[in-house]
């Protein structure tokens, strides 16, 4: 049940061509890193997969279902199986950690009861288990904005866990964090990938992180796929193709 991205193109209303005919297939259980300069189309690609951004043309097919053709109702059913975590964490800052985690379940619970703020006890238990898994169970009643950046991103992961996702989209999940925290966050994502078999598409800035975690790399430049292969295949020539002639390699 692979994820098939077929000639995906996105042109914004102002004429910017963010993606141009990008095609690839991701098999179940892969950890795909998406790399490229800022503005290369990494975020747009991830958001076109769950249609937070409507692609201009092309198709995304997952589990044999054409996401790009789904009705709003079908789309919500699909989205609830696709977890997503963000560079800015995107938590509701004034809500508690527990509430933030529970919102990951909104696609499954009774919509009318959820509007009244009610979640069944079984869902609250599920949320506590998710928080335990990211080591934050004791902070469940804190307001989200009282947490440090690393803790907030772990709440973001717990929220995604609530969806019991089969696919995880991670948009620069560690770019807003201290480099030393990057590994702790990526290890949670890696664990999801290895233990639970969740397919991961993750955009990353640092090549050493790519080498350490990814099983496959897709390189984007100006909205065009310029590389698709294993991390160890990125040599100096490939590196310059992705990042431009003036780029220098730092670290790994």
């Amino acid at each position, binding site marked *: 049940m692979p994820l098939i991205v077929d000639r995906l193109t996105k042109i914004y209303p102002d004429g910017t061509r963010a993606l141009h005919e990008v095609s690839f297939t991701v098999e179940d259980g892969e950890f795909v890193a998406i790399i490229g300069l800022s503005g290369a189309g990494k975020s747009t690609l991830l958001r076109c997969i769950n249609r937070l951004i409507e692609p201009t043309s092309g198709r995304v097919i997952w589990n044999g279902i054409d996401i790009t053709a789904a009705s709003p109702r079908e789309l919500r059913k*699909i*989205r609830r199986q696709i977890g997503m975590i*963000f560079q800015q964490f995107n938590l509701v800052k004034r809500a508690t950690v527990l509430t933030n985690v529970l919102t990951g379940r909104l696609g499954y619970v009774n919509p009318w009861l959820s509007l009244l703020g009610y979640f069944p006890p079984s869902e609250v238990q599920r949320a506590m288990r998710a928080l335990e898994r990211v080591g934050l169970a004791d902070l469940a009643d804190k307001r989200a904005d009282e947490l440090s950046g690393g803790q907030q991103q772990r709440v973001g992961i717990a929220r995604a866990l609530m969806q019991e996702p089969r696919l995880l989209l991670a948009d620069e999940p560690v770019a807003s964090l201290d480099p030393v925290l990057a590994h702790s966050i990526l290890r949670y994502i890696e664990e999801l990938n290895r233990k639970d078999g969740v397919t991961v598409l993750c955009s990353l800035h640092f090549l050493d992180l790519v080498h350490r975690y990814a099983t496959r790399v897709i390189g984007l430049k100006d909205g065009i796929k310029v590389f698709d292969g294993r991390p160890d295949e990125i040599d100096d020539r490939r590196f310059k193709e992705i990042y431009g002639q003036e780029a220098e390699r730092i670290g790994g």
Partner: protein
Amino acid sequence: MAAERRPPRGSTIVPGLAYSALGLRTLTVIWLTVSLTLVGLALWRGHLWLWVAVGLWWIGTGYDAWRRLEGRRPRLWPAVLIALAAIYGVGWEVTEIHPLAPFERFDKMRPYLIALTQPDLLTYPTERQVLRIPVEVPCIHAPSPKEVRGEARVWLSADCAQPGDLLTLHGEGFPTGPSLELWWVNPIGERQRILQEGRPLSPQVDTMGRFQTTFIAPRAVPLGFEPPPGQSQTHFLELHIVRVIGGPRPSEALLEVAEKMGETVAIALLATTFAVLIAAPLSFLAARNLMGGSPLTRLIYYAMRGFLNIVRSVEPLIFGIVFVVWVGLGSFAGMLALMVHSIAALGKLFSEVVEHIDPGPVEALTATGANRLQVIRYAVVPQVVPEFVSFAVYRWDINVRMSTIIGFVGGGGIGFRLSEWIRLSAYRQVATAVIGIALVVMALDYVSAQVRRRIV
């Protein structure tokens, strides 16, 4: 190339044409608008100096246009100065500015200022003993002194008088404790306090139990009950001996101000609450970020925006007049007027709050498969509620101030009573009301500032 296309210098005779020929479109429009305005003002007011201003404006802009044609630096400010002088001159005239009026007519204001230092706050329960002295008005015989005996004795210098005559009253055998008041009662029973220099006259009893005072017989002949020529009417001079029997208690005016102030705050509270309940859902429909999705929602957005802007531009006072006619005099009309205006004002503010939320959580919850209402409930509402509350408290504060004004057109609350007291020249009661309003508004201002500081 520019030189070849240079328009003829003659075009500066009509400066607008020159500007237009130079391709200065904005300046052409401004020139045309100002010229028409000045000519319009001159036609309206008909002053010669306005026609002179029109001429000078024409010359000034012509000079500027000529300089531009010559390729020199523009010099528009003399013309602008002339136009401004003409506009402000007419404005000054129309506004009937009379800078000295506040000083010349200060005596109209004095009673209010004096009353502010002695508002009607407390009364002391009193017992009064009244001595009545008949006075014939006008004199149809030679005046002679008049004596009245009781426990004490008083003499009035004349038993008849014309309004404006000087009368002297003196007495003997009075106790020193109670205060004395002089009242004048006309033949139909209308009673007025005798004043001296605008203040109630209160003769002082000396240690021997005597007093003497001089006053002017007031103009008290009732309209329509004037005596026929050659006849007189019997007025009474009343001497009240006022004994205080007991401690101070709130005056009637104070009690009434307190009650009406409570009514005013309640009107504002209900108006604000209802307005918040209606404006909050409407504000989501008037928020661009939530309604930008499809053409239908965008249509609703524009309709909502337009509705809020139109309603907001109508002053609550005008709604007050409308609702007084519609539902009748009283607090309900005032409440409705404030509510309608507040819905529009809050709706606009709320929608701007919604537009400035962090879009991150909206995106995140949309990605979890939550539906639109769930996204609003969990990603938008928590972000906007504190600011909604803050604006609502501020609005309540505004509405309390506003509802005192609405009262003037019959919308209930303190304003209604205040307008009556002003009409009756009840200075001390006006002072009580003004002080009451000021205190409540200051207190609410403080509370609302504190609430807003804590929330946001």
